[in-house]
């Protein structure tokens, strides 16, 4: 997926939500996106995934190349991401592959693998309407993984998860990248981005303000703040392991 000088404005909006954005996302990588509310992170995901302006309306200028049509997106709120047509978690997860017309055996195999990846096999026969927000969000992620996307876009996917669930989800992203998926994840959670993404885009006012490895562009994790307070020169270590390595060196 590549954007070249892309500007995007929502219908009726006075100012563009994205301004002159250029970037490329490679297969097999995890790219993080972060920024303040209104900085354009969610819009960047919609544009990068090809959902805007196709489904949102609005005007896009510049050049966008998306080399795959196997693209999935996950939002922060799970309740509105259900199909509303399934009475079991298994049927909900199988919905996507079945829609693509895969053979029945492939649908069921993909469904079981996705349930396993998200650790929700035990919920397979439950009614999605009876699950907690955290369980439901893991089911939603399993539902898009079952479609084996080549580009996976996640907008603050751990907002409804407890810390352990969020850790498990973020730990899965590099594994998906190893399988060849291009992962683009937006979150304000710098701690987890620092541990997961190999590249981070920091958005400000609809533009990509910084773009590089987490250690080069992030400076707001707890460890970085401690390092800054201790007088450590930039770039700051973002996690304990990096801090220890810096101290040892």
């Amino acid at each position: 997926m590549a954007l070249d000088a892309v500007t995007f404005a929502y219908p009726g909006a006075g100012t563009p939500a994205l301004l002159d954005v250029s970037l490329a996302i490679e297969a097999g990588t995890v790219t993080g996106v972060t920024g303040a509310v209104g900085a354009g992170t969610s819009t960047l995901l919609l544009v990068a995934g090809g959902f805007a302006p196709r489904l949102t309306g609005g005007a896009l200028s510049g050049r966008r190349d998306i080399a795959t049509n196997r693209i999935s997106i996950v939002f922060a709120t799970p309740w509105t991401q259900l199909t509303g047509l399934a009475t079991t978690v298994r049927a909900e997860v199988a919905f996507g592959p079945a829609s693509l017309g895969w053979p029945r055996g492939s649908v069921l195999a993909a469904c079981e693998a996705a349930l396993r990846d998200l650790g929700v096999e035990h919920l397979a026969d439950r009614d999605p309407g009876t699950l907690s927000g955290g369980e439901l969000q893991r089911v939603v992620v399993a539902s898009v993984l079952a479609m084996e996307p080549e580009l996976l876009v996640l907008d603050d996917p751990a907002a409804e998860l407890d810390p352990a669930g969020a850790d498990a989800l973020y730990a899965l992203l590099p594994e998906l990248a190893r399988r060849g998926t291009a992962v683009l994840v937006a979150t304000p959670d710098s701690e987890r981005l620092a541990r997961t993404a190999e590249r981070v885009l920091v958005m400000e006012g609809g533009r990509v303000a910084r773009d590089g490895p987490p250690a080069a562009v992030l400076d707001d994790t707890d460890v970085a703040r401690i390092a800054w307070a201790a007088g450590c020169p930039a770039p700051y270590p973002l996690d304990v392991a990096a801090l220890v390595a810096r101290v040892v060196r």
Partner: protein
Amino acid sequence: MIGYVPGASALHRAHPYTPLAIATGLFLMAFAVSAPGAVWVVVAAAALFAASAGVLGTVLRPAAILALPTWVLLTILHGLLGGAPHVMLGPVAFSVAGGERALVFGGRLAAILLAFLTALATVSPARLVEAMTARGVPFGRVYLLVSTLTVVPRLRARVRRIVDAQQCRGLRLGGSPLARLRALGPLVVPLVLSALAEVDEQALALDVRGGTARGRRTALDPPAERRADRAVRWVVVTAVVAAYAWKFLGAGR
């Protein structure tokens, strides 16, 4: 409650097209007959249809709530404005012919409501999706039908959430009719706005999940269509054709 009610009756286990065919048959039969007695036989058949699925108690209340205002209006209009002969009900001259017409129209309404509420209560939306998918019906049409069938339970759940939220903020639902009317605003506005927002998000969710993909969907667990299903549907078709033949040949008048 207007929506699917899980159960183990023969109608629940039948192919989803079978309860829908019976409901459609009862609807058509209600218009094939014109004598009040015959119309109320169709009503009785609709009630039997509901009872056989064990949902009579469930569908009676919404059917009555929906039908009652129309019944009252029909009785007043036809009873007061209908032609001779009349009977005196106190100071009011009530038209016998008008009363019969009200019975016919009211009976048809009752039969239709009972039949379709029973179909709603016995047809699982998920099984209907599978059945239609197995028949190769395009997903757009499947979604249109099934989302229509499930809209009432979903709206009820949303209304309950909004009522809870607004009551937490101090909204009072009781009191005089005027106070109750005033309380509708804080309920209806978020109901409409949230429904519109959800339509957008669900459209995106369905698009992501292949809802707009071209080609035939895979039916994972299509409901079995047994000989009994086909037999029941043929009986319905035969009965409806016979009733209309009777009607148009003049013998039913």
